[in-house]
């Protein structure tokens, strides 16, 4: 037993060490948070540090300069074209005015002809009257007036004929005058339009002049965008400081981990913990999993079950520990192999729990998992399946190379609200589109699809292209997503405050 200089009993010391280990573990988590935040900042800064943004900026700036130059040139061209249009409209207006004058002259001439026709018509009417009077006088003259009567009759006929011709002339002249007036009205209207168009073009010339003036300033304005490179440079410097924070956090993290391990060595039991709360087991299980300490995981599980905690609560504790360990490992960019080691540990723990309680009770959460058609890479699917089970989620596994129909059918029959599709190959991954379509056709639009597998890790945006709702880049991601979809809070269940497991 290490000498502390304090007079405390073995039990107190155990409790103290236990307390210290827990505190250290909280500090570790805190450091993990710092590291995670720092990594997130680094990820944001990465494009800046790598010069990606510079390249993109240069590309965009170059493109803007080209566009500005084109806009400027376009403004000048537009102004020139407007000026030309205005000149054409001016010439056109003069022509319209000439036509208008000619038509007015024509109307006047028609009116003059009409007046002449009126006079002729008057003469014809008077001649007819004279002819009739002459016939009357010839009749009074008897036999001597017979020859005169013939002449008077012919004069009357001639007057009728003249009147008839005069009527026709008058009608034709009237028609010409009317049409000429119509033409003149049209020309008047066009002339008005022309004046309006000329005014509009005039305004366009003014706008084009204005644009041209400002357009010539655009390249200068775009060139000033280079000033934005300074903040980028500063952000790059900040990235350097952030890197130092990360290194420091990593060092503190390692030191704390060593200290934690050392304290556990002096603790009274082989797993470094006495009887404690279920939350305490969660912390320790997670830490043992991160460290790959299989004997510790086994010992903790047995102790947790032996200490009187409900097996179902123990199952929840294991689920949360797995998740916590996976999250920590993800932050450290651990390999698939390390996750697989966790998988083996959890498999062992589940066996232990299930041997005591039979089939684990479920929370009511369900998920269909499988490898898409043509995909035979089962590792990820197996790991996801086990981590789901460890979290009390019922798993309906449709296996390797499963058809879209199998996934949908399993979801329909089980009522699962989440489907997980794993694929390494691009073509297999596209099966998700079919699954989505079939779900929609069956009215299961709210059923969520999680995409997982190598092709989604290499390109995370690929999941949206194939119609998946989520992407899981680590086996534990699926657990969080299912819990989110079902609105399940595992800690509440563990404390007995809600989310009761289904019967």
């Amino acid at each position: 037993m290490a000498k502390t200089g304090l007079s405390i009993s073995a039990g107190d010391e155990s409790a103290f060490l236990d307390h210290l280990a827990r505190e250290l573990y909280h500090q570790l988590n805190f450091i993990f948070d710092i590291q995670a935040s720092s990594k997130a900042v680094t990820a944001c800064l990465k494009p800046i540090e790598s010069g990606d943004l510079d390249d993109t900026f240069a590309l965009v700036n170059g493109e803007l300069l080209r566009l500005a130059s084109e806009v400027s040139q376009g403004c000048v061209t537009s102004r020139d074209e407007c000026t030309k249009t205005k000149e054409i409209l001016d010439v056109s207006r003069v022509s319209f005015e000439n036509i208008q004058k000619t038509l007015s002259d024509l109307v006047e001439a028609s009116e003059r002809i009409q007046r002449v026709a009126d006079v002729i018509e008057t003469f014809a009417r008077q001649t007819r009257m004279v002819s009739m009077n002459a016939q009357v006088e010839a009749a009074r003259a008897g036999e001597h007036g017979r020859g005169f009567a013939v002449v008077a009759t012919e004069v009357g006929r001639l007057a009728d004929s003249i009147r008839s011709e005069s009527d026709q002339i008058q009608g034709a002249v009237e028609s010409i005058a009317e049409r000429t007036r119509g033409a003149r009205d049209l020309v008047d209207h066009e002339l008005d339009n022309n004046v309006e168009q000329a005014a509009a073009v005039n305004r366009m010339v003014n706008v084009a002049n204005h644009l041209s003036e400002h357009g010539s300033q655009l390249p200068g304005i775009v060139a000033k965008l280079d000033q934005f490179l300074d903040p980028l440079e500063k952000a790059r410097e900040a990235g350097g400081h952030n890197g130092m924070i990360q290194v420091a956090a990593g060092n503190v993290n390692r030191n704390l981990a060593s200290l934690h391990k050392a304290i556990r060595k002096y603790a009274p039991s082989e797993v470094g913990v006495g009887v404690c709360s279920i939350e305490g087991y969660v912390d320790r299980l997670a830490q043992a999993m991160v460290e790959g300490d299989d004997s510790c995981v086994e010992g903790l599980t047995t102790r947790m079950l032996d200490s009187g905690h409900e097996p179902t609560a123990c199952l929840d504790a294991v689920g949360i520990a797995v998740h916590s360990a996976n999250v920590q490992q993800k932050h450290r960019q651990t390999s698939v192999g390390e996750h697989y080691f966790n998988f083996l540990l959890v498999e062992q723990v589940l066996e232990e729990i299930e041997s005591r309680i039979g089939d684990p009770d479920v929370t009511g959460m369900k998920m269909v998992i499988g490898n898409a058609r043509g995909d035979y890479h089962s590792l990820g699917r197996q790991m996801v399946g086990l981590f789901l089970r460890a979290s009390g989620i019922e798993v309906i596994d449709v296996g390797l190379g499963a058809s879209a129909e199998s996934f949908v059918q399993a979801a329909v029959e089980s009522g699962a609200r989440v489907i997980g599709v794993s694929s390494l190959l691009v073509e297999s991954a596209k099966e998700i589109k079919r699954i989505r379509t079939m779900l929609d056709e069956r009215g299961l639009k709210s059923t969520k699809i999680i995409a997982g597998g190598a092709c989604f890790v290499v390109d995370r945006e690929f999941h949206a292209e194939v119609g998946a709702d989520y992407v899981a880049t680590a086996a534990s991601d699926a657990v969080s997503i299912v819990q989110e979809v079902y609105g399940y809070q595992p800690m509440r269940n563990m404390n007995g405050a809600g989310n009761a497991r289904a019967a």
Partner: protein
Amino acid sequence: MNSIERVLAALTYGQGGHGTPDRVPVFPVPLMQGALVHKCTVAEYFKMPAQKIAEAQVAINQMFEGVPDGVAGFPNVIQDVTGFGMGLKYHYANSTPAVDGMLIQSPQEIEGLKEGKYQGSPDLCKTLEIIERLACGIGKEKVVIGACIAPFSLPSMLMGTAGWMRLLYTPRLRERYMQRLLDICEKFTVSWANAQLRAGAHVVVLADGMASATMIPEDVFAKHACGLIKRTIRQINGMVAYEAVGRVEPYAHYYADSGAVAILIGEDDDIGVCKQALGGRVGVIGNVNNMKMRRWPPARVALMAKRAINAGMDGYGFILANQGPELPFDVGLEQIGALINAVEVYGRYEKKETGEFSLAA
């Protein structure tokens, strides 16, 4: 300077007696795109005779005006399993085939596992013929590339990744079965790689998807993979380019004395850090994201290629390529063209009075 001279000059960092490269070499990996040449599906293309596949690879090279410095003499590395009598199945018309069932269902079966033989596989014999045809023609100027699965990854093809992981991480199983399994895989890989070199391949890519930092932690890599990789490379009688699909950077320093001429790296790996770790002894090939190329516009591909060139060209030792394994079939030809063309635009070295090429000041 032809492509072979350029690649050798680059991979020896200008110190190997081949002079200095005039530009950064480029190796796109359009394995499936040969189907576009023959206007057929990928499945139909892979089933074509050797002559047709060789013709397609030459045509693709010419499609990009001969700028690519290499041609692939192998349809796809998954075919290596046929050397163990396993079958392949095409589930999609335009995708690589998948294995038609696992050869090893349980670790106990490893005791009865027979050695693999490339001679017994029509697919692998066809690959040798493709390499021969390419070597006799375009291979006089362009690098003919062969490929095989590395012995540490071959078990995942024979028994599934999950099965291989379980064996690797379960001490009882590992101690009893792993050595025999890896010995058989090592023997096959070495004989198959040497056969490709004898057929005329200039370089063999050793594909090791299970040995990256993405897949296994460093202690497992150091204990079970690293020695095997180095021993395998030593037994291959020619140039080897090593490809661990996934993150390579954390283990890059292990490859400095591996005997490989280059390692293929991924988008998440820092080219500069890798080159530094390799100490001028092993070149770097990479690292434009092949999946993202599917949706990037050509300008974006060019930008990312430029970024890779900027990071890698100084001091030579760098070849531009998409990250492994191959280009997905639905990557557009414009995007592939943008990747290739980037070396002409951004990857030129300046010629000095001495006749050597170097980075412009």
